[in-house]
């Protein structure tokens, strides 16, 4: 992560168009991609739960979606700061990419409302899994919205001709992406271990009562 920050802030050349504010790109885009990945992972685990019926996928799906909402909020915050620096506004409703990402984020925020409104058990696991699977439809829509709508406000960096940046910029982006993905993976594992330990302890307390 340290290398990624050094590359992003000091090594990568300054963008001729946006100036120094373009450096937010190196943290904003990897975080957004990680958020998409976490939501996708949560949906995949939900599918496995419905398919195989193993309860462990419920917790894995929940933790992945929890990670997704954390990275989703970071995406919205860093995006708002970048928008203020580049466009002069914190938010614009005219950008489909922003609005669809917000919809995706709010959809998965509602996942927690559904989950915690039901009693613990197989019914809650199945309902949460079905909801998580519905949300996965929004991921490609949100991801591709900018290309489908030809939105000129939100910049498109990755086109069919490849990344529209220099090799150093692209290297900084890739290192940051790898670092953020690794961070997300570590946080996912740690949270999952904590949740499993919590469940095991509860069961143990029941057994000893």
């Amino acid at each position, binding site marked *: 992560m340290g290398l990624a920050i050094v590359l992003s802030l000091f090594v990568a050349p300054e963008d001729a168009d946006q100036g120094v504010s373009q450096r937010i790109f190196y*943290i904003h885009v990897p975080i957004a991609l990680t958020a998409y990945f976490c939501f996708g992972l949560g949906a995949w685990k939900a599918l496995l739960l419905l398919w195989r019926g193993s309860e462990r996928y419920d917790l894995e799906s929940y933790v992945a979606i929890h990670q997704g909402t954390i990275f989703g909020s970071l995406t919205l915050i860093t995006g708002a700061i*970048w928008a203020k620096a580049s466009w002069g506004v914190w938010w614009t409703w005219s950008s489909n990419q922003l609005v669809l990402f917000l919809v995706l984020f709010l959809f998965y925020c509602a996942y927690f409302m559904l989950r915690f409104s039901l009693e613990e058990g197989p019914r809650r696991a199945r309902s949460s899994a079905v909801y998580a699977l519905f949300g996965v439809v929004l991921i490609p829509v949100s991801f591709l919205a900018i290309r489908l709508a030809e939105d000129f406000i939100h910049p498109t960096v990755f086109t069919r001709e490849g990344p529209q940046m220099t090799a150093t910029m692209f290297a900084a982006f890739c290192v940051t992406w790898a670092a953020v993905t690794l961070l997300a993976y570590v946080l996912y594992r740690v949270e999952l271990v904590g949740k499993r330990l919590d469940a095991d*302890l509860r069961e143990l307390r029941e057994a*000893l009562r």
Partner: protein
Amino acid sequence: MTQGQYVAAAYGVVFVLVLVYVVIIAAKLARLQRQTTELLELVRAGSVTGRASEYAEPVRGAGTRGRG
């Protein structure tokens, strides 16, 4: 605010939020460790009898070897 300050704010927000998340997880793990220790102390003190036997796996191979 200058553009440099916006960049610092963006990276700072990420750092602070990840730090807060790590602190929350660490506090939770510390709580779990405390609960594990409490349970262990209860078991050692013998103050719990409960339904532990219901959860115990059946002992296999306990035969009558050596008798008679």
